[in-house]
């Protein structure tokens, strides 16, 4: 009996992790999970399988709040993870300081996708407010991705008008006047632009834009990098309550740290997310055009503040549509 027990404890342990993520990261994490399982097996001899769940970032966060047992979450914006911390208390409020780079191992930015040869000659944000230009973006109130788009435009306007908020508001009002459809999700607006052929320009995440071109052919679309844009930082976090209950803290922690490793960064870059590691950034430099980027902390004082000022009911976005 004692021998049998001894034999069991020496055997490799099996771990199961659940990574609750948002929509466009499906392919990225498929590759990460396979690579991490191999890495972890080599390091500790234990088997780890990471299961994935994808959906709209806000929806996913609500599922975790309501009890979906995620060991880690990898969402589109810090606000959604803040909500898990605030509403459910599953992780401490200062979660963002627990990993390097405000817990965002890879980044992206907001660019334009235009039709081949750029017939409306769109080169920067101020071309989007011109009359006759039709702009496609999702509704920032329902789509996390679209919130980055909105804030990127707002940041441009603030810089252009020397922080004059009244003028910036006017700019935003003109921009959204050119939006004929506000899809509820970011992928929805990509479909509107790419499949249905509606609109002259799609405001979108860089990884989505590159993916659209890769899938639909170079002869149909072009990417236009604006003069300035926002540094989109999709964050990752450990859900303390779940990992303590499932006793998976060590492996879950290692999983998140793996995203910062050279292999992890390589995989991110391969899936068109901008890596943080200088060495990997240099290797994929030709893939990501140099754009002047501002962060949400610099310009908006973080997500909670931005959410409250811009996207709450009666906030600045609602005011664009004429209701206070």
């Amino acid at each position: 009996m004692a021998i049998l027990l001894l034999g069991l404890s020496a055997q490799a342990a099996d771990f199961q992790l659940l990574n609750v993520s948002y929509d466009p990261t499906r392919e990225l994490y498929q590759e990460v999970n396979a690579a991490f399982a191999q890495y972890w097996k080599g390091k500790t001899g234990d088997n780890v399988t990471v299961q994935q769940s994808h959906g709209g970032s806000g929806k996913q966060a609500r599922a975790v709040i309501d009890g979906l047992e995620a060991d880690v979450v990898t969402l589109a914006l810090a606000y959604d993870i803040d909500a898990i911390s605030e509403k459910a208390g599953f992780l401490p409020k200062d979660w963002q300081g627990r990993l390097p780079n405000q817990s965002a191992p890879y980044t992206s930015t907001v660019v334009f996708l235009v039709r081949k040869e750029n017939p409306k000659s769109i080169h920067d944000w101020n071309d989007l407010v011109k009359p006759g230009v039709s702009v496609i973006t999702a509704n920032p109130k329902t789509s996390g991705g679209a919130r980055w788009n909105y804030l990127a435009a707002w940041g441009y306007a603030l810089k252009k008008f020397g922080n004059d908020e009244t003028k910036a508001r006017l700019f935003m009002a003109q921009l959204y006047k050119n939006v004929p459809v506000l899809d509820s999700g970011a992928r929805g607006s990509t479909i509107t632009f790419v499949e249905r052929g509606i609109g002259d320009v799609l405001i979108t995440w860089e990884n989505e834009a590159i993916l659209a071109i890769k899938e639909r052919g170079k002869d149909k679309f072009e990417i236009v990098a604006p003069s300035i844009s926002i540094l989109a930082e999709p964050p990752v976090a450990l859900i303390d309550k779940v990992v303590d209950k499932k006793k998976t803290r060590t492996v879950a922690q290692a999983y998140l740290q793996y995203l910062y490793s050279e292999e992890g960064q390589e995989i991110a870059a391969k899936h068109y997310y901008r890596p943080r590691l200088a060495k990997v950034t240099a290797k994929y430099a030709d893939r990501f055009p140099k754009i002047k980027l501002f962060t949400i902390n610099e310009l908006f004082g973080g997500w909670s503040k931005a959410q409250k000022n811009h996207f709450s009911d009666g906030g600045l976005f609602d005011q664009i549509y004429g209701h206070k």
Partner: protein
Amino acid sequence: MKLLLKQKSVLPGFGPALGFTLFYLTIIVLIPISMLFLKTATLGWSSFWETVSSPRVIASFGLSFGTSFTAALINVIFGLIVAWVLVRYRFPGKKIIDMLIDLPFALPTAVAGIALTTAFSERGLLGSLLGSIGIKTAFTPLGIIIALTFIGLPFVVRAVQPVLEDLDKEMEEAAVCLGARRWQTFVHVILPILFPALMSGFAMAFARALGEYGSVVFIAGNIPMKSEITPLLIITKLEQYDYAGATAIATVMLIASFACLFIINRLQWWSHHRQEA
């Protein structure tokens, strides 16, 4: 009532069957819906009122109820015609058309939404045709009506069909013998018999349309104050983690739908009663 309960039924097991029915309804319907009210109650009266009376929410109520009503009405008229054709005439391909009617039931609503939007957007087959005569459908309230008509079609057809099938041809013949013109026969003989079925078809199509989300969000355009349906606003609230606000709007929807269904039910009862008399 008491008398009725005590009466011996031919079928055994009334007690357990009723008990099970009540239990089942409680688990499946009553408890989840009471959660809605409980969550709303956390809001307090003043913020409840503030939420549901904001211009954007009011605009969405107008849009949701207006388009659902219109779509259900369209379905009553054309659903009746479709049912009529299917019951009264024989023609090749009838079985296939009969099956097509149920398609909106079977299709995931998101698929319906994508298909409709593809057909009715400016570059789509139907959208470009309508566009050439100056009618814009996708991304306008008109597009919403189209989507809601689509998903509501089976309700009216399937409600009217069996009644039409049972309709005594002799009654029509009698009417004609007594000198009624065709339209008189229809208005005075056939329509009153069909009325209850049409009403229940209308009620189901209307109720389904009110709650429809999946197919509408694709074709609506979702522009605040113009083409935002109420279910989308509920999702919007959830996206802001405003559970109480979302359930507040949902509560108003629930009460309003219940009132509508109640009125329709009374109308049905009234027309049935009048016929019997």
